[in-house]
């Protein structure tokens, strides 16, 4: 069994929900990423989504677009991103790491080569924003052969029949994009999210994690009430921009934010 499934089982044992944190590899600098991953885990993160820098991050709001641009200034590639995971694994064998991003760097590397290198680095899954299940068949075969979970996404616009198909294809967990919009948009309707996730949970075959628009502990706690976990991305990434020049302050600020989210989520669960 993979680290992702282990992680959800461990959390179920303690009655906690997954706090999934997102940073872009190499933002603000390549040297910051691995220490920051450890900091986030030490402060309560259950799982890490590591963004793969890309020149054209279509689904991101302005905050995460700039994170991709900062990482691209250091020319951080898919291969570099996997090297960071391998470095993280030297000290952490249990926290799942999922690569999140756009498919083109993987397409350029080749599916099988990517799957081999990712598995060797200790990557547990992929979330590819621009690959719906219909376009992911060939890639999934390569990933599954190496024990990597293809995580698919659900959206507010996804009808039930399609959601069932997505659950069939998704491994590890399924990611509910909780709003119509880009990452970090401000229009999250928590009541609507809770309702929709509760509906998914009646037929879900994987854990359901909610992301996009979770800005603070209160929202994370409300989302965690009905789901198996919450993703915090833009809120963390904003700190990178604010503390680009001060790595120590950055680590402190990220630690404090992750702790706040963890505490809030543990209060409800």
């Amino acid at each position, binding site marked *: 069994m993979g680290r992702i499934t282990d992680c959800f089982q461990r959390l179920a044992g303690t009655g906690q929900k997954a706090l999934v944190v997102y940073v872009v590899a190499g933002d603000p600098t390549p040297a910051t990423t691995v220490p920051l991953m450890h900091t986030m885990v030490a402060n309560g993160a259950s799982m890490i989504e590591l963004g793969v820098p*890309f*020149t*054209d*991050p*279509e*689904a*991101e*709001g*302005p905050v995460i*677009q700039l994170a991709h*641009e900062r990482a*691209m200034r250091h020319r951080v*590639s*898919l*291969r570099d991103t996997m090297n960071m995971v391998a470095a993280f694994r030297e000290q952490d064998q249990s926290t799942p790491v999922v690569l999140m991003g*756009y*498919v*083109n*760097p*993987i*397409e*350029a*590397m080749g599916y099988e080569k990517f799957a081999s290198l990712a598995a060797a680095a200790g990557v547990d899954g992929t979330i590819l*924003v*621009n*690959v*719906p299940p*219909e*376009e992911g068949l060939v890639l999934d075969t390569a990933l599954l052969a190496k024990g990597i979970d293809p995580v*698919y*996404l*659900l*959206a*507010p*616009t*996804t*009808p039930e029949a*399609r959601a069932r198909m*997505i659950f069939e294809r998704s491994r590890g967990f399924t990611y509910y*994009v909780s709003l*119509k*919009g*880009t990452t970090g*948009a401000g229009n999250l309707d928590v009541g609507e999210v809770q309702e929709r996730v509760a509906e998914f949970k009646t037929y879900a075959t994987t854990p359901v994690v909610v992301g996009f628009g979770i800005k603070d502990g209160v929202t994370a706690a409300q989302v965690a009430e009905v789901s198996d976990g919450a993703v915090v991305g833009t809120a963390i990434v904003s700190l990178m921009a604010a503390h680009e020049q001060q790595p120590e302050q950055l680590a402190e600020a990220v630690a404090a934010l992750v702790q706040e989210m963890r505490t809030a989520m543990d209060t409800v669960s």
Partner: protein
Amino acid sequence: MTHTEHNSLAADTATRVAGLNEALAVMPDETGHFGPYGGRFVSEVLMTALQELDEAYRRLKHDKKFMADFHYDLQHYVGRPSPLYFAERLTQQAGGARIMLKREDLNHTGAHKINNCIGQALLAKHMGKPRVIAETGAGQHGVASATVAARFGLKCRVYMGADDIARQSPNVYRMKLLGAEVVPVTSGSRTLKDALSEAMRDWVTNVDDTYYIIGTVAGPHPYPMLVRDFQSVIGTEARQQCLQQFGKLPDAIVACVGGGSNAMGIFHPFLEDSQVRLIGAEPAGRGLATSQHAAPLSRGSVGILHGTRTYLMQDEDGQVLDTYSISAGLDYPGVGPEHAWLKDIKRAEYVAVDDQRALHAFRQCNLLEGILPALESAHGLAHAMELAATMDKEDIIIVNMSGRGDKDIPTMAKIDGMRLD
């Protein structure tokens, strides 16, 4: 071989060829693929909207009223059919095949872009979407979108790279006059590809009430198909006009290729006429040997961007490269997936024409024909003139004169050291 055997072989060959031709004509497949290209590489949020669009379009293209409305506007609003004009002096200059210009530059708003915009605005109306968005590079598609929005009473927002806004101020003002909101895009390379990404972000956010008018034969399925179909009026007319004027089909068709909508529009009705050479001219910018061009079919590799798998300008890490062309309308790192397919199966050929050759053709067209072509179209013309010289006098080349060059006057004046204000 007996007579019967021969007949049966001929029939068999005919069936096989018909099968092949039919296969070409009915692309893409059900899932929106042209062989390995195309598809629907988008966020889950958009999947349902794209399915709805696909269903609406498949229904409406067989709807007599819808198609009648489309053709009414093409005739009375756009001014179709556009002439197929014999460029006698350019032909003499080139010294070979007869050069015919398909005059899309005479359309309302000055380019072929309007054909597609009429079709998509009608789709938006039928789908009950009160708001349209569009991306634009040179501003031609933005102007065409703003125009149809005014014509059909739709709210319109156009995304345009901040650098392109600076280069194309007359078109920006024109869109504003038409009541559209023009939003500068400051992310990435601040040009067309970033405007496209930003339009997709808007669509993801406002998918319930918004229709996205994509301006070229790229993007996720069904856009490459429906934009091609709306633009096919160019090729359908050209085919009839050529048969009427010469009693035969042309020997070659040449069109410039950025995203590739004018080329796809004129190529598509000729796909089954295997004797007609189809040639797309990509922008070679400062030369294919430099990194400053926008010729993915000539120098790119297969990748995925803006919803589709196609040839792309990218580095070995799969990062999309900045492109360059003197013509803003061709300055895009990808190309429509059907062109990628036609290249691979060798039904179309793709060449690259650099800035200098395009500028030369631009000037010759002005001096010898009294026609001011768009810099985009001048790329096609440049290749056609060189090709004509290698062909027989009886041969016919049709060049898609996809747009007029009024918008390029500031660029040209700058090159010539003229001050316009």
